[in-house]
């Protein structure tokens, strides 16, 4: 049973965003790069499924520039068997382009499960997973917070407004992992050593034409500085007055 995990390298969540000279993209200088946090849940789950089955292969696929190698090595150190690096110089390919390239690379692998993260914490698009599934003609469940495999089907739970949908999906399928699915492991020293010998295949990303055209990236208007109404319970009457008569929210 082969599982594919799509992994995106993103700027650390602590990053102070600065806009590059083109006025459209993130200035990469000084940015620490990490594996997209949701992709860690996806990878962890794939590893657990392989471990529970006692067989199978976990292949990580990532699209991006040369700096991606560290994230791929990290995935291999966590326990993935091999990696595919889809190389591109495009600074910010749009989700349709990424999905197109991922689908082309994944199709020949004929996987049992394709894993993605719920969303990438840089573009916050939450699109690449379901778009890739549509292109591969696979059923897909997004925002997966629990999973149970029952032979050829997976029973998964996904968060919706005010509840959880319990979805039964026939495999092969694409699943997009949410936080809460599991607690991702850290790479062990042994894993880090082993990762050095694991293969990273390289191929050119088949992006095709862009579907979105970036116009600008800008920092949002800063919130007007707030004020401390007072100290302790004594400040409550004034707070209530402000909420009622100034902000008019209660």
């Amino acid at each position: 049973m082969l599982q594919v995990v799509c992994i995106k390298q993103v700027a650390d969540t602590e990053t102070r965003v600065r806009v590059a000279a083109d006025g459209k993209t993130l200035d990469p200088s000084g940015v620490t790069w990490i594996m997209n946090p949701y992709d860690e849940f996806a990878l962890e789950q794939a590893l657990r499924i392989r471990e529970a089955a006692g067989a199978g292969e976990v292949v990580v696929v990532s699209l991006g520039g040369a700096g991606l190698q560290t994230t791929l090595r990290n995935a291999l150190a966590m326990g993935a068997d091999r990696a595919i690096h889809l190389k591109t110089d495009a600074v910010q390919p749009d989700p349709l382009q990424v999905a197109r390239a991922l689908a082309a690379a994944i199709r020949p692998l004929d996987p049992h499960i394709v894993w993605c993260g719920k969303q990438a914490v840089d573009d916050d698009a939450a699109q690449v997973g379901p778009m890739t599934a549509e292109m591969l003609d696979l059923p897909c469940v997004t925002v997966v917070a629990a999973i149970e495999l029952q032979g050829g089907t997976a029973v998964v739970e996904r968060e919706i407004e005010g509840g959880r949908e319990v979805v039964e999906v026939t495999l092969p399928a694409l699943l997009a992992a949410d936080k809460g699915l599991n607690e991702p492991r850290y790479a062990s020293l042994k894993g880090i050593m082993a990762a050095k010998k694991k293969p990273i295949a390289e191929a050119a990303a088949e992006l095709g034409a862009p579907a979105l055209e970036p116009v600008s990236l800008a920092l949002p208007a800063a919130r007007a500085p707030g004020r401390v109404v007072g100290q302790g319970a004594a400040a409550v009457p004034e707070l209530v007055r402000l909420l009622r008569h100034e902000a008019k929210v209660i």
Partner: protein
Amino acid sequence: MPILVFIEQREGAVRAVSRETLGEATRLAAAPGEAGSGPVVGVCCAASDPGLAALGETGAAEVLLATHASFAHYEPTGYTRAIVAAVEQVKPAALLFPASAMGRDLAPRVAARLGVGLAADCTALAVEGGRLIATRPVFAGKAQQRVAFTGTPAVASLRPKVFAPVSGGNGGPAKVTPLAFAAPEALKARVREVKATTAGKVDLTEAEIIVSGGRGLQGPEHFDIVESLAAALGATVGASRAVVDAGWRPHGDQVGQTGKTVSPKLYVAVAISGAIQHLAGMSSSRCIVAINKDADAPIFRVADYGIVGDAFEVVPALTEAVRALNAQR
């Protein structure tokens, strides 16, 4: 050219987010240029008509209704086919979805099937020089991206609670027309059941008021003070990640970069430090109140109003004051 809007229904009722999306479509339709100046048409997938004619009031001229027995629950394969059929029939300049749980799952599939770009979770749309420009928060709200579309239709999903519905829209009922589409034979994914987790409560992403608690509350048993304040305000309870990771509250309650993004009119942060990943999920709230015993907590930098003090003293006093205010009304 027309603008097509996906009308989301659940359990036989049109959801409020659909009226917000229709509202923005109505405003866009009034704008000059290619993207504007057309009728607003809805497309709805349902087991039976959830009262679509009433959407005339909120801006829809016509609603195409795709019915199928499997549409009692959300079912992406059939929904995608129906919407693609509606696009082929209506030939819209733009196709809009609510960026709800359903819309965020469905819109990318429809866009991929159509081979066009999608701007997800938008907070503003505008027609500039005849073309549609979408504004969307990226990096968890630390920046805003503006994008244009290279193909037609432009597909966008709109963040809940950001766009206002219109009223008196069409001056009459919407015309409801059955939509012909090829339903899928066998479903590869189907909803077995929907477990209510917040029975009777408004979801965080749709709440007008949210009261969130953080690690400073020291234990799940102390969330009662947050619950009481929320009850007095008619609010939904949220939480920081520290609290969720400790198992004090369920994952669905988490606000922030790896939780929910919320935009209520009032957000009360109780004993939450205001880490950048928490701010990411709530800094677009209209009014923010912080209650924290540490005057230097970063939450005070985004709070409109802050009280420096012990939550166990301040929150019950605030609850009493809100109750007294409610009693006067």
